[in-house]
């Protein structure tokens, strides 16, 4: 019984906070930022999931439900390759362990549609822009590095939540897929695919 009362109180408090916060939803601009966890998909160079990432985005609601804005984020995905011997066409050979590192910095414009103008705002978003990427291979004291640019597109689904009374402060959680057209002949990279999620704060 005590637990039920606690749950009811919590739900009531939540609903109260949500309804009160909804009074703050007249604001048209927003800024979100936080931590981003990214996994590379179908990537022979580095296939890993990593939390070395962050994002920031902001926008303006040109209509009550539709916003246009900008974003930038970064992620590093590293992969350790244990010691192997690589034999080349001229019979030269290299034995070493190595670390591969894929660094991605996409940025561009966002188009967001929110389904509610309440304390909880679920939304869908499309991000379009450019991606700067660096592919590095660390071997002993050497590093081989190359960089490239590509076209970037990313659909995202998420929600922002403003639980505090009369405060433009809340939280964001979202999941995304992204594709960029970056290419690297040396590493046989023909596009970069990612999936991930992000947790952040919202203003």
């Amino acid at each position, binding site marked *: 019984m005590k637990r039920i009362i606690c749950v009811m109180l919590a739900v009531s408090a939540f609903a109260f906070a949500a309804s009160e916060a909804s009074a703050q939803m007249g604001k048209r601009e927003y800024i979100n930022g936080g931590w981003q966890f990214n996994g590379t998909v179908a990537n022979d160079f580095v296939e890993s999931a990593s939390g070395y990432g962050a994002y920031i985005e902001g926008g303006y609601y040109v209509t009550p439900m539709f916003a246009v804005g900008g974003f930038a984020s970064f992620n590093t995905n590293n992969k*350790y390759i244990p010691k192997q011997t690589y034999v080349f066409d001229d019979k030269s050979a290299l034995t*070493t362990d190595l670390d591969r590192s894929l660094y991605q910095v996409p940025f561009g414009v966002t188009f967001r549609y929110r389904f509610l103008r309440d304390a909880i705002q679920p939304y869908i978003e499309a991000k379009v822009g450019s991606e700067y990427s660096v592919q590095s291979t*660390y071997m002993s004291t050497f590093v081989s590095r190359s960089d490239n640019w590509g076209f970037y597109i990313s659909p995202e689904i998420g929600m922002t939540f403003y639980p505090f009374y009369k405060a433009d402060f809340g939280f964001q959680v979202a999941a995304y897929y992204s594709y960029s057209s970056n290419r690297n002949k040396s590493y046989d990279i023909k596009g970069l695919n990612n999936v991930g999620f992000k947790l952040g704060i919202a203003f």
Partner: protein
Amino acid sequence: MKKILLISAAVMLLAACHKEPYPQDSDNEYLVYTSPGKDVNFAQYQTFDIADSLLVIGQSDKPVYSQSDNALALIQAYRINMEKRGFIYTPSDPDADLGIQLTYVIKTERFVRYYDDPYWWLDYPGYWPAGYWGNWTGFYYPRPVTYTYTTNALLTDIVNLTGEVEEGKPLEILWTSYIGGPAGSSLKGDIKRMEAAIDQAFVQSAYLTRNQSK
């Protein structure tokens, strides 16, 4: 305008956030690279000689030739591997077919970095209070933090001594190897790792033999 500046600053911050792999993630073994000359057939060579000293670069202003125990251990490792491959060691023989020269390079890199508060131990509970020395309110170090790391490498060339000596004609290098990486905590340990790396250099150079079938 304030928000644009905020976003711009954040973008620049993002661009500087590449997470580099940690050096301690590596297996702590030396990288081994070997490369033969073009169309070299080692079966046509029979004897070899090894320079009796190790050329050391980086420990003093001028290169020095070392015959220390460590130097001789590396030379011996090459001799053993060459003999396993069927070559005959003929020390100080002017008619040897192959010559082997070894060079050890040691290099120290220094990085100087500035931090807002690099000397974290000054705030460590119980650390010497500045007031101990009089009416002082704290410490400061006049220098930035300096990091150093040392690498070492063993370079080896096998040269062709059977060619005709002519004025201005360079000596042909038939095989070369680079063994290198971060230096360990002791030279003795580094030499052990290098001996293992020398074995690996031969393992990945199966053509370096008098036996045609290999």
